[in-house]
């Protein structure tokens, strides 16, 4: 069934480019040091983006061997590579920062040339996660994300805190991977195949051949609906645990503050963005299993319906708890990386809202046995699309923020005249270290403030557009139903939790802005983090501002990506029928006037 042909390799050419670039980076690093590695990485990423951009985008899914290229994987791939490019710039800045430190420094770095190559492999793995349509490839590519992450964590910071962080992440990640592997095994057991397509067909058709009897044990193939009823919750729970770890969502969130604090700032930037992308892809793939493909006219069977129902309830709860916990924890933090870790937990919660919405949209109000197909129409917003849109806005602001922090580098030390000892360089660690930044480095302060306001969701910055689409897709669940149903109440509640969390989050983002703008300092910043991270920060700002003014481009591509996976009808920009309304409106207005006279 699965044939790997030349076409497969052609479709994978961006990833292959990255692997080749990684090899070159490893080799080059051996001879000419670390900076050459990052040069290769940036070039390789540039080529990969060009190659993937040039691939034919026919709008249809192309399956070849274990991979599928559709709007979704296309979006994930481009998001991964562009994020990777900016992160590569930032990390090369991180190198520069370490290079200026003297030998007495605690965070002394041996010039390990493997970082750039390892990072490229991580990116290629992440892109493969989006492409995989097969359980084996899905798992392998997830490990291609995990293992380079361990290496990066261990390489970049060799002091005790760094070691602790990398070990913590390593062991927890192993547990999460194992749990996710278990859920993949359950899926194999359900579908009898490693192909996601086959498993999806099996799940969707389970129990739909004949209505279930009271005993609930109809034999379909070799799997009974009752067996599925046992397997599915187990699969769901373990999968969600794996996903929650990658996204740093409750209950697998607790490692994040410790690991972010212990590791280097650039690693924190990687951790707060790339694994989140992986987590969303994993979850979206599992949800898509229960949703019939685009335009098939197929209905969802009872088993799939149960799966969808359980999934959205579970995701909605996890989302609500995650954002609240993340934001409340962040309020208490004083260390910048810990604070951003908590913020990234909270954002994982926001991201899950869209996934809950897309899952619930595929269920019907009649309950598990309604067996109704998705009501895809132009009046609801696809939740997956809004999650993907929000993901991009979040990643953009976060990467820019970390870029700015790395660019700022160190405080000027306090010179003491009494001792001749050279003072120790202080890295920017706490919120107070940002005091007075608006006077000492106005450009960086402006960039950071803009990123923070975007994360807080202040209009018209991209974070606002992201939250707008999340809230819209969440509120539109069940808005067309005749009666006010349970599902609707759930999602109205979820939306309220979301916006209130946005207000809580503003408190700690404003704390950083307050430090930068309203407080003064006698110590400036060195801004020794390297020009490349400064460049990354400015690039992020420009992109951010242009998305604020014109959010349409990114939004439509997110929409297309979401639609291909969640089975919604791809609604190309339909000219809205405003004419009719305005005519009716004018009629009403004139009637009111008549009445007034």
């Amino acid at each position, binding site marked *: 069934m699965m044939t790997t042909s030349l076409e497969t390799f052609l479709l994978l050419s961006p990833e292959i480019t990255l692997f080749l670039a990684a090899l070159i980076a490893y080799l080059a690093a051996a001879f000419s040091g670390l900076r050459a590695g990052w040069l290769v990485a940036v070039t390789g990423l540039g080529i990969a983006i060009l190659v993937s951009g040039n691939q034919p985008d026919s709008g249809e899914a192309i399956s070849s061997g274990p991979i599928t290229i559709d709007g979704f994987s296309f979006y994930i791939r481009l998001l991964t590579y562009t994020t990777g490019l900016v992160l590569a710039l930032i990390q090369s800045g991180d190198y520069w920062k370490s290079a200026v430190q003297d030998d007495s420094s605690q965070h002394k770095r041996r010039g390990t040339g493997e970082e750039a190559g390892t990072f490229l492999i991580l990116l290629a793995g992440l892109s493969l996660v989006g492409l995989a349509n097969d359980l084996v490839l899905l798992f392998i590519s997830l490990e291609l994300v995990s293992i380079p992450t361990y290496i990066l964590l261990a390489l970049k910071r060799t002091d005790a805190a760094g070691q602790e962080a990398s070990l913590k992440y390593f062991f927890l990640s192993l547990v999460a991977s194992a749990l996710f592997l278990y859920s993949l095994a359950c899926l194999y057991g359900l579908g009898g195949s490693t192909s996601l397509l086959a498993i999806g067909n099996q799940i969707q058709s389970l129990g739909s051949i004949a209505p279930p009897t009271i005993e609930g044990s109809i034999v379909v193939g070799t799997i009974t609906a009752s067996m599925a009823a046992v397997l599915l919750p187990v699969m769901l729970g373990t999968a969600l645990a794996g996903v929650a770890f990658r996204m740093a969502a409750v209950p697998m969130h607790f490692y994040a503050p410790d690991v972010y604090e212990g590791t280097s700032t650039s690693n924190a930037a990687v951790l707060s963005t790339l694994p989140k992308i992986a987590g969303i892809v994993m979850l979206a793939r599992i949800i898509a299993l229960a949703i019939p493909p685009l335009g098939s006219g197929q209905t969802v069977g009872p088993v799939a319906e149960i799966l969808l129902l359980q999934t959205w309830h579970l995701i909605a709860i996890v989302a609500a708890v995650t954002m609240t916990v993340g934001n409340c924890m962040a309020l208490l933090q004083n260390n910048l990386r810990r604070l951003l870790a908590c913020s990234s937990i909270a954002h994982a919660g926001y991201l899950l809202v869209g996934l809950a919405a897309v899952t619930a949209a595929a269920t019907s109000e009649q309950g598990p046995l309604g067996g109704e197909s998705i009501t895809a129409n132009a*009046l609801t917003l696809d939740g997956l699309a809004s999650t993907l849109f929000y993901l991009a806005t979040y990643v953009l602001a976060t990467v820019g923020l970390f870029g700015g922090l790395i660019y700022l580098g160190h405080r000027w030390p306090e010179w003491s005249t009494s001792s001749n000892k050279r003072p120790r360089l202080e890295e920017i660690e706490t919120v107070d270290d940002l005091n007075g930044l608006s006077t000492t480095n106005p450009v960086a302060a402006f960039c950071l403030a803009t990123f923070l306001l975007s994360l807080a969701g202040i*209009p018209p910055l991209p974070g606002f557009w992201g939250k707008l689409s999340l809230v819209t897709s969440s509120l539109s669940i069940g*808005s067309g139903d005749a*009666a006010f149903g349970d599902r609707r109440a759930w999602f109205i509640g979820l939306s309220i939790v979301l916006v209130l969390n946005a207000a809580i989050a503003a408190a700690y983002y404003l704390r950083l802005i307050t430090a930068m703008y*309203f407080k003064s300092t006698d110590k400036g910043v060195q801004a020794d983090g390297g020009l490349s991270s400064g460049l990354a920060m400015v690039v992020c700002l420009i992109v951010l501002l242009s998305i604020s003014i014109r*959010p*349409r481009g990114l939004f439509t591509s997110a929409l297309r990506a979401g639609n291909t996976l969640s089975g919604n009808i791809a609604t190309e920009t339909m000219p809205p029928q405003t004419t009719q309304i305005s005519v009716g409106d004018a009629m*009403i*207005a004139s009637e009111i*006037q008549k009445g007034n006279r």
Partner: protein
Amino acid sequence: MNLLSPSTHLLLVILMPLVGAGIVWLVSSRGLQAVRQSAATTAVLTLVAAGWLILRYLMSTEAASNQVFAMVSVPWLTGGMFDIRLSVGLDGLSLWLFGLSALLSVTAIFVSWEAVTERAVGFYMLLLLLETAMLGVFVARDIILFYVFFEFTLVPLFFLIGIWGHDERRKAAITFFIYTLAGSVLAFLGLMTIVLWNASHTGSVTFDIEALTAGLSLHPLPMDADGGYLQWVVFLALLIGFAVKVPIFPFHTWLPLAHVEAPTGASVDLAGVLLKIGIYGFLRFSMPMLPEATAVAAPWLFALGAFGIVYGALVALVQQDLKRLIAYSSVSHMGYVVMGLFALEPVAIEGANLQLINHGLSSAGLFALVGMLYERFHTRSIQSLGGVAKKAPWLTALFMVFTFSSIGLPGLNGFVGEFMILAGSFQRAWTGVSPELQQSYLILSLMGVVGVVLGAWYMLWAVERVFFGNSRLPPSHLDNESQESLDLRWHEIVALAPLTVFVLWIGITPATFLAPSSQSVRTMTLASSNAFNRQMQPAQGHAGTEMITHNNESSDQQDRPKTNPTFQKPISVKQ
């Protein structure tokens, strides 16, 4: 005049401050003088352009037929279900608030002329940015665009308070921001629910405010358990957002802090314009779109307004800080507006709409003058000031003008608004409510009258202590006196003179200002008034006043054509 189409003209007015902010940034290297001159020029030009646009509106056919003038609509975020547009336009409701924003921005810049010398570039850029946001919020015709401007006003003000404010500025800035944000995000959910409800009933998504108003009058949000009390939920969500902004009595705690800590320029904009956005929100969204819920909530909000009047006045009475006193007087005065609005009587609502402008002028003037006092004497404490009139007679004279405007002296603007509000409230209390509520309405209206007396008391008492009597100033200030005059300087006159003109103008010919927005305001509140009248229907049988029954008949006639059968079914009234 045909050179500039109204739409281009409107866009120009909104974008001018933004361009001006850019210019301020460009000339920043040339020093303070260049910075403030370019900022002032921008604000004055914007005011001229806005004034000209208002004149064009008054002469246009749209004004006569109560339609939107200078409509521009450009797609912004489209795709999927979104059809968010950059659409702006003027109508009778937004007209004067739009003008007020342009006017007070000029005041804000000129009162900061000497006061702000540190980091002046940022200050003037933020003031101009705030002006764009304020102008935008009143002309936005798209619900999301409205919200974008609504929330964006917070950002410049946050920085203005936090950087150039007084001792407690950081706390004030954060409190202000978080408090208002928490309210407005809930309002945002309410607005989105309206959009989605309309979409699911008309079959197409629109974010246009007019279309939504029309759609919601055809398919009102449900008020019963089957519909999840959705109209109530949405009304409460909007209420929280707008009530914090106004602020209505129990939500007012952020206001005194923000005002006292804010620099004068920011206080002028905050008191003069930003407080009005909440009321504007009620008029634009809650009242026309959610009439049944408004009708049920109206008595409660009427009462909150009346409590706010007396509470604000009593607290103002005991203040030692002059700026805090005026901040609490704002709470009291906004109480009148809320009371007038939720009397749901056309006279009172028009009065409330005028009172928005009146309060904008008088409170902005008073805050500006307090700022000038502070610049001269470095204190705002009523106890340590005294005998200012001798040293600064013109300053005193202007303070008196705005004081009298604020306490409603006949002949000045405040009187017209307060009179209309109180007249409308009493009219409602005597003839428009059910017998059970009549007594409460009368008492509440009387509280409004008491508020007028209290207002005169605390303002005049403060004036007496600050401006007259013996000088209680520490001797160090006397040296200052010998060197330069303490009276108004040219830029302060420029800042305040236009306000004085309008204070007198509105006071003498209020019809000039009432007429253009009258029809628009009545249209906006018609549905709510009708719903309230229907709710009070049993009472009118007893009262039997000719005027009210007549009113009621005509309103029923107006109502009938645009309602579907579900709208006609009797609304359950808790008796």
